[in-house]
C-alpha cells in the first residue's frame, strides 16, 4: 500500500497567507482599511495546536483572548519591538524599540505624523524628563501615570464624573482617543469622515457623536515621507466657541477644553473673553490673519511678499469648506482661511521635546535670533528678526 502523502494544509495555508499578505501590502498601502487574510489579525478560539495564538503588548503569548478576536493588542500591532522602522506590514508604528528619526527625513525609521511613544519611555539629551514628551498611555508597557499630572491640563469641568477618570485624569488605553474602525471603508473620498471610521479613527469611544469625530485627509504613509506637497490635511474649526465641529483641535479639546475657544475660565471660576488679540491663551481655532501688516501673513516666508509653502514642521488646518473640496495635500497657504491648530505646535502621541512640542522651544526659539528649527517663527515671522 502506497503511503498516503499527508499534505500539511496548515503549512501550505501559511505560505499562501504570507504571499497574500505581501500582495495585499503592495496594493493597499494608501488606505487605512485593512486587507489581507483575516487570520493575520484574528483568532477564533485563541487556540492553535494546543497553544495560544494571541500575544500581549510585549509580544508574548497570551492565554487571555483579546476583544474582537484579535491576535494582539493595539500596542502589540502598532509597535516595533526590535528596531525603529515605523511602518511594518503596512501598519503604522507608534512605538519603536529604538529611537526613530526626527523630524522625518523620509527614511523607513522616520517618526510618523503623531510622533512616537519611544520618547515617553526614554530620556534623551533633548528631554531628560520623558513624562513631558508625550501622552502617558497606560496601555503601553513601561509607561506609568505622568508624575507631573494627575489630570489633563485644561480639563473640562464636566469631566469629573465617576467614569471620566480613565480618559480625563489618565489615559487608560488607546481607545481614550481612538475608536478603531479598521474595516471601515475610507477609500470612497479623500476626506475621511464617519463612513471611513473618522480621520485616524479619532472619535471618543465613550461619548463620541457625529460632530466630535475628526475629519481629514490621511497621508498614505502617515507622513513617514513628508514635504510641503506630501502631508496630512487637517480639518479646521467652523466656530470660535470650541463647539464640536469635527475639527482636529476640537478633538484635543475633549480633554484640554480650556485651551480651546474664545473663553477662558479663570482659576476663580470667572469666565474671561479671549476673543481678540492680545490673546490670553494661544489660539487654536483661528485663521492666520489675512492682513499684510501682520507677520502671520508671511507664514514660512519671513521678509517675503506673501505666504510661503506649507511647512510640515508647523502645519495648519484647512477651513472645513475648503477641505471638503480638496483631493489631496496642497502646499498652498491661504491667510484668512488656513488656521492655527493644536497640532501646529504639538505632536499628538509624543515628540523628542518637552510638552510634546514639535521643536525644541526653550533652546531653539530665541527672540531676535532667526532659526529654521524653531517652528514658532514659521507663523511669528518677525520675532526671529
Amino acid at each position, binding site marked *: 500500500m502506497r503511503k498516503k502523502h499527508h499534505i500539511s494544509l496548515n503549512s501550505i495555508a501559511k505560505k499562501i497567507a504570507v504571499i497574500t499578505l505581501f500582495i495585499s501590502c503592495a496594493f493597499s498601502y494608501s488606505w487605512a482599511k485593512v486587507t489581507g487574510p483575516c487570520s493575520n489579525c484574528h483568532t477564533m478560539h485563541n487556540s492553535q495546536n494546543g497553544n495560544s495564538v494571541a500575544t500581549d503588548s510585549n509580544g508574548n503569548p497570551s492565554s487571555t483572548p483579546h476583544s474582537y478576536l484579535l491576535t494582539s493588542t493595539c500596542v502589540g500591532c502598532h509597535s516595533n519591538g526590535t528596531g525603529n522602522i515605523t511602518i511594518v506590514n503596512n501598519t503604522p508604528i507608534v512605538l519603536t524599540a529604538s529611537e526613530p528619526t526626527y523630524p522625518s527625513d523620509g527614511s523607513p525609521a522616520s517618526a510618523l505624523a503623531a510622533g512616537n511613544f519611544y520618547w515617553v519611555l526614554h530620556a534623551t539629551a533633548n528631554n531628560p524628563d520623558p513624562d513631558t514628551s508625550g501622552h502617558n498611555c497606560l496601555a503601553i508597557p513601561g509607561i506609568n501615570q505622568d508624575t507631573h499630572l494627575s489630570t489633563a*491640563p485644561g480639563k473640562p469641568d464636566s469631566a469629573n464624573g465617576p467614569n471620566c477618570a480613565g480618559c480625563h485624569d489618565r489615559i487608560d488605553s488607546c481607545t481614550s482617543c481612538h475608536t478603531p474602525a479598521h474595516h471601515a471603508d475610507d477609500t470612497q473620498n479623500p476626506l475621511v469622515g464617519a463612513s471611513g471610521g473618522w480621520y485616524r479613527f479619532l472619535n471618543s469611544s465613550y461619548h463620541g457623536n457625529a460632530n466630535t469625530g475628526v475629519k481629514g485627509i490621511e497621508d498614505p504613509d502617515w507622513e513617514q515621507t513628508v514635504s510641503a506637497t506630501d502631508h496630512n490635511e487637517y480639518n479646521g474649526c467652523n466656530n470660535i466657541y470650541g463647539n464640536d465641529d469635527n475639527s482636529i483641535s476640537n478633538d484635543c479639546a475633549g480633554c484640554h477644553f480650556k485651551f480651546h475657544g474664545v473663553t477662558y475660565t479663570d482659576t476663580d471660576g470667572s469666565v474671561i473673553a479671549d476673543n481678540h488679540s492680545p490673546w490670553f491663551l494661544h489660539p487654536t481655532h483661528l485663521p492666520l490673519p489675512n492682513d499684510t501688516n501682520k507677520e502671520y501673513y508671511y507664514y514660512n516666508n519671513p521678509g517675503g511678499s506673501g505666504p510661503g509653502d506649507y511647512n510640515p514642521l508647523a502645519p495648519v488646518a484647512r477651513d472645513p469648506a475648503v477641505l471638503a473640496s480638496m483631493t489631496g495635500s496642497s502646499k498652498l497657504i491661504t491667510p484668512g482661511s488656513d488656521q492655527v491648530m493644536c497640532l501646529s505646535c504639538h505632536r499628538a502621541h509624543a515628540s523628542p521635546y518637552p510638552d510634546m512640542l514639535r521643536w525644541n522651544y526653550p533652546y531653539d526659539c530665541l527672540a531676535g535670533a532667526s532659526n529654521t528649527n524653531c517652528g514658532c517663527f514659521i507663523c511669528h515671522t518677525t520675532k526671529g528678526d
Partner: protein
Amino acid sequence: MGKGEKMERSKIIVVITCLALAALLLGPSQVMAKVSGPCSDCHTMHNSQNGSAVVSGGPYRALTKGDCIGCHTGTNDGSNNIPYVLQTSAPTYNFDGTKATLAGGSFYWVYDSGGNDDTKGHNVVGIASSDSNIGNTPPGFNSTDYTANGSVGTAWSSNQLSCAGTYGCHGTHTSTDDFAAISGAHHADDSTIDGSTVGKSFRFLYGIKGTEDSDWEYTNSSTDHNGYYASDYNNGPGSMDSASINYLCAECHGNFHLHAQIDDATNGSPWLRHPTDYDMNNVSSKEYGNYPNPTLYSNVSATGDYFVDVPVGNTTGAVNSKVLQASGDAIVLCISCHRAHGSPYEDLLRWAYSSNDSGACNAGTQSGTCGCFACHTSK
C-alpha cells in the same frame, strides 16, 4: 477680591518670575529695547505647566508671564536687562549723587505698599490707589489741544491712570487695555526712534522722539544720558511739535504747556506758569546762560555741561554733553524738574523743593540740594 488686592497677591510670584527672566534677556551691551532671548522666558502658551498655572493671577494678554507691573518690578543693579520702575523697598536716590533708580524715577514712593505718598508719584492703577488729594483727573487736563498722537480719555471719574492706553502714558491711546496699547512694541526694531509706531517711539511713548540711553540712565553722566527731543514752541509762540517729550506730558497736563495758559499777553517773561518747550538760548544773556551752575553741583564741572539731574532737551533729540552752544539745544522740559514715574519728593520733583522736604530750595541760599539753581543761577 478687588483688582488691586488681586494684583498685590500675585505680585510676589510675578516679580520672582520676572526677576528670573532678567539675566536671560538681552545682553550687557544691549542698546535697543527690542527684546531677545528665549521666548519661553516671557511667554506661556496656556498658563499651564505640570498641572499648575505658570503665573498666578494669569493668564495675561499677549501670553505673557506677567503684566506691566509684574515684569517691571525689581532692583536695578546695572546687570538687569529689564528696566525696573517699581521696587518693593526704597531704592537709593540722591539728587546729584548715586541712585538705584532709572531716568523715570521709581513708583516706590507712591506705591501703596511702599512709600504710600500720593504726592510723590503718578498713581498708576495696580501700584497705588487713586490720588487722595486730586482724584483721577490730571491737573491741568486739556482735552482739546493735545490730540495729535491720539486722544487721552476724558472719563476720569471712572478711570484711573494706567501704564498704557487710553488713560495711560505708554503706547497708543486707542485702547484701554495696556497690552493692546503697546502690542508689538517690545519686539519692534527700535534702532531708529522716529515716533512712527509705539515700538519706534521714545520709551514706547507713542509719537515721541528722542535717543534712548542704553541702560535707562542707571549709569549716567554729562556724556551718558537720554537725549530728549523738544521744541521752542513757547518762544513766540511757535508751532507745537507733537514729538516733543513735553507734548507727551501735555496730553494730560496740557494747561501747563499751552502758551495761552502759561504766558500773559507779553510773550516770554513774566510767565504765568513755568515754561516748558522754551529754549534757554533765548535768555542766555541772563542767569540761565550759566546753566548748570557748576560750582554748586558734583556731577558737572563747567558752564554748559549737560546736567543729568536737571536735564534739558534739544530740537534733534541728540545726546549732547554740552548745551547752550547753539540755538535749540537747551530747551526746558517738564522732566527738567520732575521724574515721570515718581521720586522721594513731593510733586514728583527731582529734588527737595518744598518746605516739607528737608533741604528745600531757599531763595538767597544757593544749595547743591536744590536743582532750581541749575538754571536760576542767581537766585
